[in-house]
């Protein structure tokens, strides 16, 4: 697969240069995917996908453009790139657009990260999804309206080739299963709950039995939920939704936001933006990590980075182009695996110590303003008073400034989320403004 992708990428770069591009970067990718859903005992949908695509960044007379197509036949590519280069010549020049010096680029070999499970290629999806659903429904004896089990697996490979000699490839496999239940509440509402597990290697998936137990518990927890009175208090954000909070920081860290002066972090480098208990890393080299990789969008080698240390902002996310605009060394424009270090207490220990607080297990809509750091999200979860769960809450919002929120960060629990590229444990914040009745 890799050879074909390399040949196509090299062909794209070659055609672009022949047609007048001074430099070019081509990305090609190919993937296969199977996605199966079952509802209440019947297969509902079975989808098999195979896709292939190519894209190219063109540098033509100090002008820049990006193009993508899934028609990768040589004559079609020649026509496509010829029009793309013509279009690029009509743009205004941007002398800062050029490939990075080859000495800045990496080797592009990701084989050490163990991102491919070659032993699980023959999977019986029908049996797998049957098992997920049976386990799920067995764990929920009453109040169940409907249950859906879902499984997926896939593999993908991508290749990046630049005209100045960089070549990187990135191949992964992915496996996942999960379930969603709709419960019958006394007031006619049908609250839903779901859970899933995903991994690069099939053997790393959470067992179907454990998953089923979690979905059952989540489903039961949705019943009888209501809003409580507005109040300021503690919020423990469950690990699997903590990315929603961390995401409010990642957007304004980006080079374009900083340069375009629409980032609340533009004047915060080296300054305290969170309580000293808060640390945030980006680690691209986690073995079998969902966000792991060895090179970034510029072809530069990736490395573990500290984004926030003891509450101080230590880095922005700057790619090569914005590095030139901001006259700073690039740090890589995106994130890979976000990591918040684990704490020492379990979520149960934390919850049992709360005088008043809400254990937030889901967000509903809301947004944050990267220019000011204001956020407002809908939440649902469980209310705790004097260490005891009092019932589930919904139809409530949290609002404030992310600086106040992070300034009130107390501790991380001991439960890192392993099902994705945000490896955060559950996070405890103090004095969060909840709005309700």
């Amino acid at each position: 697969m890799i050879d074909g992708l390399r040949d196509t990428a090299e062909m794209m770069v070659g055609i672009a240069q022949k047609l007048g591009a001074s430099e070019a970067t081509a990305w090609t990718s190919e993937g296969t995917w199977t996605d199966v859903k079952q509802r209440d005992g019947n297969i509902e949908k079975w989808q098999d996908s195979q896709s292939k695509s190519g894209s190219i960044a063109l540098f033509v007379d100090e002008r820049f453009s990006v193009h993508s197509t899934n028609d990768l036949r040589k004559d079609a590519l020649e026509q496509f790139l010829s029009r793309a280069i013509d279009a690029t010549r009509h743009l205004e020049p941007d002398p800062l657009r050029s490939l990075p010096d080859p000495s800045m680029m990496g080797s592009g070999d990701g084989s050490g990260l163990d991102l491919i499970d070659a032993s699980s290629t023959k999977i019986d999806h029908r049996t797998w999804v049957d098992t997920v659903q049976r386990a799920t429904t067995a764990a929920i004896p009453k109040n169940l309206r409907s249950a859906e089990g879902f499984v997926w697996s896939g593999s993908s490979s991508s290749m990046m080739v630049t005209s100045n000699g960089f070549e990187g490839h990135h191949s992964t496999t992915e496996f996942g299963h999960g379930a969603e239940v709709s419960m019958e509440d006394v007031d006619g509402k049908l609250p839903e709950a779901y859970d899933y597990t995903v991994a690069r290697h099939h053997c790393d998936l959470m067992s179907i039995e454990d998953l089923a137990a979690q979905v059952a518990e989540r489903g039961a927890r949705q019943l009888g939920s209501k809003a409580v009175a507005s109040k300021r208090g503690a919020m423990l954000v469950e690990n699997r939704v903590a990315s929603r909070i961390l995401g409010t920081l990642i957007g304004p860290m980006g080079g374009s936001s900083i340069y375009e002066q629409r980032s609340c972090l533009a004047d915060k480098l080296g300054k305290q933006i969170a309580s000293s208990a808060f640390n945030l890393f980006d680690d691209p080299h986690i073995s079998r990590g969902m966000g792991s990789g060895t090179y970034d969008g510029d072809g530069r080698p990736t490395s573990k980075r500290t984004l926030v240390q003891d509450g101080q902002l230590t880095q922005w996310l700057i790619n090569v182009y914005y590095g030139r605009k901001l006259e700073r060394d690039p740090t890589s424009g995106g994130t890979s695996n976000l990591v918040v270090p684990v704490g020492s207490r379990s979520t149960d220990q934390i919850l049992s110590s709360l005088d008043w607080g809400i254990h937030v297990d889901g967000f509903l809509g809301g947004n944050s303003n990267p220019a000011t750091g204001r956020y407002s999200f809908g939440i649902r979860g469980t209310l705790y008073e004097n260490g005891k769960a009092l019932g589930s809450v919904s139809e409530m919002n949290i609002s404030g400034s992310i600086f106040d929120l992070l300034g009130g960060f107390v501790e991380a629990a001991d439960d890192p989320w392993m099902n994705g590229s945000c490896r955060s444990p559950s996070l405890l914040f103090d004095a969060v403004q909840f709005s309700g009745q």
Partner: protein
Amino acid sequence: MSVKRPAGSAGTYFETLGVTAEVLHSVMTEALSRGGDNCDLYFEHSSSTSILLTDGKVNQASTHVSLGMGVRVRAGDQVGYAYSEHLDANALRNAARTAAGIAQSAAPQKVAAPVAIPLPNHYPVAHSWDDVNIGERVKMVRDWEQAAFARDERVQRVEVSLSDAAKVVMIVRPDGRLVEDWRPMTQASIRCTVEGPGPDGAVIRESSGFNIAGRAGLEYFNEHRVELLISEAVDRTTFLLGAISPKPGEMPVVLAAGPSAILLHEAIGHGMEADFNRKRISIYADKMDKVIANERVTIVDDGTLLGARGSINVDDEGNHTERTVLVENGVLRSYMHDELSANHYGLKPTGSGRRQSFRHAPMPRMRSTIMEPGPHDPAEIIESVENGIYCVTFSNGAVHIGGGDFSFYMKTGFLIENGKLGAPIKDVNIIGNGPEALSRIDMVGNDLAVDEGGWTCGKDGQSVPVSQGMPTVRVSSLVVGGEQ
């Protein structure tokens, strides 16, 4: 670089790419070879071009081209789906064979010869983007940038993007139906960063913007729309400088005409998509012909609005689109159906089967969701509220289909104090429960406005363009975010 409107009769566009009547017949025969009840072939050729002005220069462009066919085979309520990115007969038959695997019987269905079905045209284009070169587009966005700076001296930075897209789709069914639709889309967005004194006098920075979209060509940017794009982008951003956060809690909420229709989309629209009801997991699943809203509330979902972003000449299963009355004077009258749900309920499809691309199976989706106007003067609605908020613009929303909880994020608005608009407010999430919110809509204005914003609806991993509109309404109580 756009996909041009096909010049020939329906079917000839893909025929020139090798998809002849014989190929169609063989692919459908393969799709139904395992005993599937029905199938659809969806061919799509799409392209888009966009340019971006940032940091004072129009120095980025992007183009995208995609070509392929998706095949869906149905066996009862079960769906098998596969697609091919090559249009040669063998690749198409392979995809059909994969999708056919959902059915387990050996009784193949007959396939009729394709006959083109004529379609209405809800998006006539006067001036196609084909002959508007990049240089002309560069001039347009430059002019808009200058106008944005000129509008307000607090504007520090301006980003402008202009894009056009077009796709040709062809849907072919075993009963012989063949439809072909050319779907244009034009979109522009302006984002501003502004600097000026905030509510307490200290200089602060804000960033926001506006975007507009419709199924049209270059003529979309008439004087009125360009003025709207620039003035809304600048004014919505400068508004934020002086705005505060409201106090949190439950309160009456007045929703301004136009963009507020995100309430319809989230609180009502999704729950009335028939797939959720067929599966009995929507909060509206057992409510057909029952009173679910105040008698002043009538809501339609319309695929036929002239030039609207959410309009379609035919749905993605090849069924005629229409104006579907969902709620009539407070009574639930219809869900939005694709064929799967229509068969389930023994009804005609409402032309609501849509998909993001050939890589996706269709499902019931909204088109343009509209609340019909009512009897009240908008000023009278605001005057009726002692303490509450008036919401003007929004950025996004979300819903839980079964529990019915929904939320939408208000970008700009005002406090209402003693029946009068008070301090400007910004950036709060508003949350409620769909059926409860519907029953609490107790005043409906006479000022219906269809929003020009470029809304995109996400569902189950698929995005489709939609439109929405409503008059000013009062909801007697919703939970508003904010800080004490």
